[in-house]
């Protein structure tokens, strides 16, 4: 392909913002510094080279238990059976893994309809300061996506107009998709007080 990879173009445009980039199974991915997300997202949307007019998805991943066997009590954990690890399915082009040691990664999937390409942008977020700038001013759809990430992971989006829980109820304690939230934990359902 003659067209340079989107991640390379981002790299040349924002040399100070890019931490890492890789292609895995054809998915072009770039990891950038958290403070530059709004800048990069704006460029992705407005630059004629990218024209990413759809924010397809916005989510997060908690890497705190990555590649560790699950510990402690869980719903379906298979304890007590000695297992030999089966041989891995070979992978010619291995995945480099998360770019930093940060606990969370916020993952954006952008699509360009005119140019028909996709790009995944990942932003590491530290556990000590789970905050990142909101891009809800650029895409209306980011509003609810960011609320969901706040709800599920407890990552705060600064500048978000209405950051409250979306799937869980307001009185819910904790963030269920964090890996340290036990699967078996139950909380009494309290209805909204209105």
């Amino acid at each position: 392909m003659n067209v340079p990879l989107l991640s390379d173009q981002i790299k040349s445009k924002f040399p100070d913002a890019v931490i890492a980039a890789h292609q895995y199974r054809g998915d072009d991915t770039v990891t950038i510094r958290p403070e530059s997300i709004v800048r990069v997202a704006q460029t992705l949307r407005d630059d004629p080279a990218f024209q990413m007019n759809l924010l397809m998805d916005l989510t997060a991943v908690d890497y705190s238990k990555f590649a560790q066997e699950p510990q402690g009590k869980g719903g379906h954990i298979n304890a007590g059976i000695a297992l030999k690890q089966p041989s891995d399915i070979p992978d010619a082009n291995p995945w480099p893994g998360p770019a930093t040691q940060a606990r969370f990664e916020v993952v954006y999937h952008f699509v360009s309809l005119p140019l028909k390409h996709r790009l995944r942008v990942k932003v590491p977020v530290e556990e000590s300061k789970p905050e990142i700038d909101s891009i809800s001013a650029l895409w209306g759809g980011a509003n609810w996506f960011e609320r969901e990430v706040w709800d599920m992971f407890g990552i705060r989006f600064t500048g978000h107009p209405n950051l409250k829980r979306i799937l869980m109820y307001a009185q819910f304690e904790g963030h269920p998709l964090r890996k340290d939230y036990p699967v078996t934990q139950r909380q009494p359902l309290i209805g909204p007080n209105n």
Partner: protein
Amino acid sequence: MEQPQKTVQQQLETATRSYDPNTGLETRDMLLNIGPSHPAMHGIIRIVAKLDGETLKDIDVEIGYLHRAFEKMSETVSYNGVMPYTDRLNYVSPLINNMGYCMAIEKLLDLPVSERAHYIRVIMSEISRVTDHLTCVGASAMELGAFTVFLYMIKAREYLWELVEVVTGARLTISYCRVGGLKSDLPEGFAEKTHAAFAEVRKVLVEVDQLITRNRIFFDRMKGTGKISKEDALSYGMTGPFLRSTGVNYDVRKDFPYAIYDQVKFEVPLGTSGDNLDRYYVRMEEMEQSMRIVEQCLKQIPGGPVAVDPQTGKPMEASEMVDRAKMGQIDKITDKIAITDPTLEGSDSRVHDKILVSEKRVSLPAKEDTYGNIEGLMNHFKLVMFGHGIRPPKGEVYFPVEGANGELGFYVVSDGTDKAYRVRVRPPCFTIMSGLHKLLVGEQMADMVPTFGSVNMIGGELDR
């Protein structure tokens, strides 16, 4: 922490009362609570509407009533164990969810799937798309008073669900796809049954078209209501029939073709104005296009002749196969088909190897093998026992398919164990619901019903 924006209710409580300049009478906005459980709402959702007379001034949408922690549960079970959960995401077209999830895992494994399996998946997804649109159009017509249309369309859906039942053995929670292939092959006579069912569906579509497309009441209530501009639809990330009704040509099947969608001919119907009527037109036309795809697939589908024992010309009994295997005559029977227990009828496919990849670390063996020989049994156990199962390499993938409501994406992160590290679903109606105020504010209260009907909100995938 910054103060969250006030809800409609809080705004109302603090709002000062205003007076009508002409009459001097006091006017107040009225608060109307619609849902969570309301006959005009498809699914459990709450809309708090601020009304000025009959005009909607502001709305507050509350979702999450059907949250079942799909994403959390997916991290606790094996890769194949997620399959039944995907059925329950969009329970009107579960086959598309199955396919999307399977293809995401296959992308993670870098596993090529046989062409026949892809064809069957496409056939089943397109049938599901028709059932989904039938439900959506039928239900929204019913809410406008056209109850007959609803009954007709549910009748048509019934023909298609019978097809689904013949193939998968279930109507709703089908779990038909497997990583690497499918549960079972198409049954005999499927093509004829499909053509017969499509003839009935087409009849119903013509009938419905005659009943409501030019019906004054239906037309007036759909035309110009629930309007959204191209720019807003894109900004909110809306996809599927919703986006296409505004005139944006985006269909995952065309723009990022997967499976065998590049080998079939079909058109992507587009609207112009992005109102309820255009969405109705788009859905009606998409049903026809979906049926067109299925018919082409049935013509083009490769393979599929029944393999039989060359000596007898009949499939072999499982018990006989075991006897022969005990005598060490494995070479004669490894590629033969056994007739297994009658209760397994749905799964004793005769061309299993044509629909499943031969990678033993991934695909479940045919039931004949599981019950007929020790290798198959071990293979089966290695995939279904706790702690065993598919172990994809470390990695992350995003795979989109065109769901009935728009782009349905699965983002899967694997850490090399037998359970997915993270499974994220990008539900198509989540983005539509997030932009619902763009569709409703400024409209009449009564227009909320057709607009909300055309959103085709599916609680299962919205709340997960």
